[in-house]
């Protein structure tokens, strides 16, 4: 029977479920013109969620419901950033959603439920919890992608996402069932022990491979990346930003739980597989991004390459590697909110501002927005002294320490190739003449502008002062 202690450990999640239900009710009784209240309440709900996560932080790792749910430092840090990213998305999205008549309660409740799914996923202590958290998050995402149901692109993207997502879920479940068959347990702790004790069998390795396919799909690692460009482009930008930030943090959490907490004893097997997947992702992501003309699609391929870098950290399979991968996931999430945030801030009714040509001469029309976008692009490209530079440096270092110098070299080479398409955006903004008849005015929402500026400036600030964040990441995996 669940006792009070279990509930206290899961308090942030319980609280969010309750809050999401209340928001649903609130929305049902609210006039459309009062929906702004819903917006602010949702943001408040998330901020309180962050408070609950931080305030209830346990001294040591604790588990609830018989080990189903784990609350440790890794989960805490990821949850803080998951909630923070979702809150930022709410702030950035309002004018965009209003302009497109999508400013509905569903957006907020689905987002919050997806966020809860992400939080459960990163706290999972059991294969079943991993699956449940993942499904809660992705099912909400399918709905969110299809939110703009009159748009053909949006619906197409949602269908593709759904079918491929179902396929990958099936593979993940299949893998889990094989592992269960080999070890007779679903709890990650016992699984870890069983792997260490019994050694591995072919059945275990097959299970592992199917699970890696599931993880790769969530992260968007090539060749399981095919959904990413279509979904990024087709989904409303305010949903794309969610798929690009919050759900990537969750996917990292899932990879860590399955690969280290569960299958840590087979690191030797999955290290090499991840290394190969990393190279394929780096290559496909960086090369195909070069020929893109749509910024959202470009950022989609950029995600694929970034997930390749994240794998470089995981390949290390040690505390240093996990710390650098988590640092990378956090940096990528914040960079992606900043980059998509600028797109959101520049879009208007009937104008998505998602073609690279739309950014021509942005500096002359809105120098501050151009500057923020430049920060985001520099950080994504890994130009020192930005946040992204140190994130890349750390994962490369982790790969080297894992004895995979060749992998680090591949990463460095593709970082240089990647520089090209990021800098092209900067060049277009600063050196090209604005297209005729195209008027760009950033949204006037003052709070949005402030938060967006802060988001982008943090990319610079964390590049100059990244000690504490890395310290937390290291501490999370030190024990």
């Amino acid at each position, binding site marked *: 029977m669940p006792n009070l202690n279990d509930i206290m450990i899961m308090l942030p999640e319980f609280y969010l479920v309750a809050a999401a239900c209340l928001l649903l009710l609130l929305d049902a009784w609210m006039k459309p013109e009062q929906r702004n209240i819903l917006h602010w309440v949702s943001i408040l709900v998330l901020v309180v969620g962050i408070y609950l996560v931080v305030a209830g932080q346990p001294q040591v790792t604790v588990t609830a419901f018989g080990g189903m749910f784990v609350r440790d430092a890794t989960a805490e840090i990821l949850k803080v950033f998951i909630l923070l990213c979702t809150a930022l998305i709410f702030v950035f999205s309002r004018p965009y959603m209003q302009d497109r008549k999508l400013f509905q309660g569903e957006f907020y409740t689905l987002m919050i439920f997806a966020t809860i799914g992400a939080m459960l996923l990163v706290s999972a202590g059991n294969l079943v919890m991993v699956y449940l958290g993942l499904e809660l998050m992705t099912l909400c995402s399918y709905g969110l992608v299809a939110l703009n149901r009159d748009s053909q692109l949006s619906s197409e993207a949602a269908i593709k996402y759904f079918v491929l997502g179902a*396929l990958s879920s099936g593979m993940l479940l299949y893998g889990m069932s094989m592992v269960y068959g080999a070890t007779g347990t679903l709890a990650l702790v016992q699984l870890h022990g069983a792997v260490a004790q019994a050694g591995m069998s072919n059945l275990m*390795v097959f299970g592992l*491979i199917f699970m890696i396919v599931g993880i790769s799909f969530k992260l968007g690692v090539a060749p*399981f990346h*095919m959904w990413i460009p*279509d979904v990024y482009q087709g989904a409303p930008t305010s949903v794309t930003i969610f798929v690009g930030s919050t759900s990537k943090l969750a996917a990292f959490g899932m990879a860590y739980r399955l690969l280290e907490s569960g299958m840590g004893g087979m690191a030797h097997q999955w290290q090499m597989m991840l290394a190969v997947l990393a190279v394929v992702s780096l290559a*496909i992501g960086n090369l*195909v991004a070069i020929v893109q003309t749509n910024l959202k699609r470009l950022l989609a391929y950029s995600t694929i390459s970034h997930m390749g870098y994240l794998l470089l950290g995981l390949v290390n399979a040690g505390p240093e590697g996990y710390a650098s991968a988590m640092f990378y996931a956090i940096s990528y999430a914040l960079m992606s909110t900043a980059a998509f945030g600028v797109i959101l801030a520049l879009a208007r009714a009937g104008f998505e501002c998602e073609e690279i040509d739309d950014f021509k001469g942005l500096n002359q029309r809105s120098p501050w927005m151009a500057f923020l976008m430049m920060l985001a692009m520099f950080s994504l490209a890994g130009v020192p002294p930005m946040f992204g530079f140190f994130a890349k440096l750390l994962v490369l270092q982790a790969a080297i320490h894992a004895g995979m110098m060749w992998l680090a070299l591949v990463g460095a080479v593709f970082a240089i190739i990647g520089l090209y398409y990021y800098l092209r955006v900067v060049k277009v903004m600063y050196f090209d003449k604005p297209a005729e008849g195209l008027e760009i005015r950033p949204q006037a929402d003052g709070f949005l502008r402030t938060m967006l500026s802060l988001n982008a400036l943090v990319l610079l600030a964390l590049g100059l002062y990244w000690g504490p964040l890395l310290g937390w990441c290291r501490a999370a995996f030190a024990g």
Partner: protein
Amino acid sequence: MQLSTTILLIIALAPLAGCLLAGFLGKQIGRAGAHSVTILGLLISCALSFYVLYQITAGGAPSYNQDIYTWFEIGRLHVSVGFMVDRLTAMMMVVVTFVSLLVHVYTIGYMADDPGYQRFFSYISLFTFAMLMLVMSNNFMQLFFGWEGVGLVSYLLIGFWYKRPTAIFANLKAFLVNRVGDFGFLLGIAAVLYFLGTLDYATAFAGAPSLIGKSLALTANTHWDAATVICVLLFIGAMGKSAQVPLHVWLPDSMEGPTPISALIHAATMVTAGIFMVARMSPFFELSEGALSFVMIIGATGALFTGLIGIVQNDIKRVVAYSTLSQLGYMTVALGVSAYAGAVFHLMTHAFFKALLFLGAGSVIIAMHHEQDMRYMGGLRKYMPITWITMWIGSLALVAIPFTSGFYSKDAIIEAVGESHRWGSGYAYVCVLAGAFVTALYTFRQMYLTFHGKERFVVVGHGHGHDTHAIHHEVHDHGAHDAHGDDHHAHTDDPHHGHKPGELEHAPHESPWVVTLPLILLAIPSLLVGFFTIGPMLFGNWFGQAIHVEEANNVLGELGREFHGAAAMGLHGLLSWPFALVALAFVITTYIYLFNPAMAGRIKSALKPLWTVLDRKYWVDDVYFAVFARGGVKLGRLFWKAGDAAVIDGVLVNGSAGLVQRIAAGVRRLQSGYLYHYAFAMILGLILLLGGFWVFGSGQIGQ
């Protein structure tokens, strides 16, 4: 009493705060707001710098050396931000913030009509921040940051009037020449890291003796002494920044920037960064006799030969610019004979009197409505008495008349060179002695042409008679500032406001108090600071551990034995060679420019070949332009045709870009949009993973 980290941080960051406010909120806070916040920042910084100097001199505070923030550590490379404040630093901080503060105040008057007012204040505050980071640094990385920071602001300010093609040219020139220097500097820092494994000053200096005997093996048979390599490379950096021959060509052109920054950056502070750096690195330089000889010869050459060019210049600012080159040469000579304290002492006095001369020249330029040609001046002393008197004070200090500050610092350098036995010191002694004569020639010439003799300009109103002139003046001063501002900008290509040279709209008049006050405040130290500080600074071991001199090289110690107080030194100076040369120059220039003006032209035509050499500046610019610029373009074109177009573009870029494009296009085709293709790719990936495992991994199973 310990120096407080907070105070040091405030000193460095107050100008930065002013810069950010004036730069980003310039429109919101307006002109008055911009100059108020930046001046307030500087005032805080300056006052606290004086307090730090007081603490460290009179309060007995020990030197401060601490890392404040570690940015990152990779292997041996430890990059941090930290401060090292000893007496050398404290003195530099006071000089930098004091001159900068006065220049800020002066700028209110000088830039009153400029549309880029806030931008200008933001830049000079940023400069002060970067300069403070440079002098307060406790490691090479931060030194480099400050070094590039001051360089950046310098380029920005040389090209401040970015619509003038000459300013853009000068800007580019300064940038390119400094690249050469900075390249050496960066290699020098790398050499320090290579040999000593640290970038921290204290550790590196402590490890300096271990350099003896080490060498850099370039090929099997060439071994370069480690200390010499480090010192020469670092000094190449100093040559760029401190405009030493042959990297001096950018400094005269930098006069295209507004006058306040000529005073602050290109005379008083930034260009002396190289001098400061070498003094700071004295533990390294003391290890290499060869490097010091090199430093001395470069400095001596600059001291004499750039001064000579000053004699034939007609632009008032350019005369002062060449004078700066020459004085920087003096400081470098002092470094070269191991008289580091002498160099830094001259740096300090020079900062005061040269800033004064530049600001005075600026005041004249305001009065002449941005006419800078001395041939159209003359007789200005009765229009602007304060500028006249203060500039004379600066000039007397510059030519080293006994009892002025300049005398103490420069005479000490000349004496020290005389004492030195280093290889090449004979040549250096001749250069610095002759340099004293040359300095007096161009300085007195400049003063006479500007302030004395007949007026060589005429006052013509806009169709007004001379009697309505006063009214016009009134209107102009009060009502028409905005219009004037636009006017000024529109005519920046043509400094004469549409008039012929030598024609003024209205009579010159004394500048407002914001301009004259800094002149007066700078005139005081120009006269007095040397008298009071020479004893302790040069001969009293005031710098303590900050400057390291080997006993065998200690020329100042030698001099100190004959030093019996500043007054005695001044009296003795009246009978010395340098003073006799100055007196001779005074007689010559007075005769030519006051009593027989026609003679200047006659001398010029009599010495036509010599005059041409000087007027063409020894053709150094022309050679650089022909060889490096034009040659560079030619070489570039060759590479472009042979290398780039054929090999790189054809094979590598177009080839690899083509390959990339083809791959990209191929992969893109895979991204067909069909769901079953996507699913197929996933299945394929799965099969590859399984198959890969089957082929490579199955051997491990069951072991």
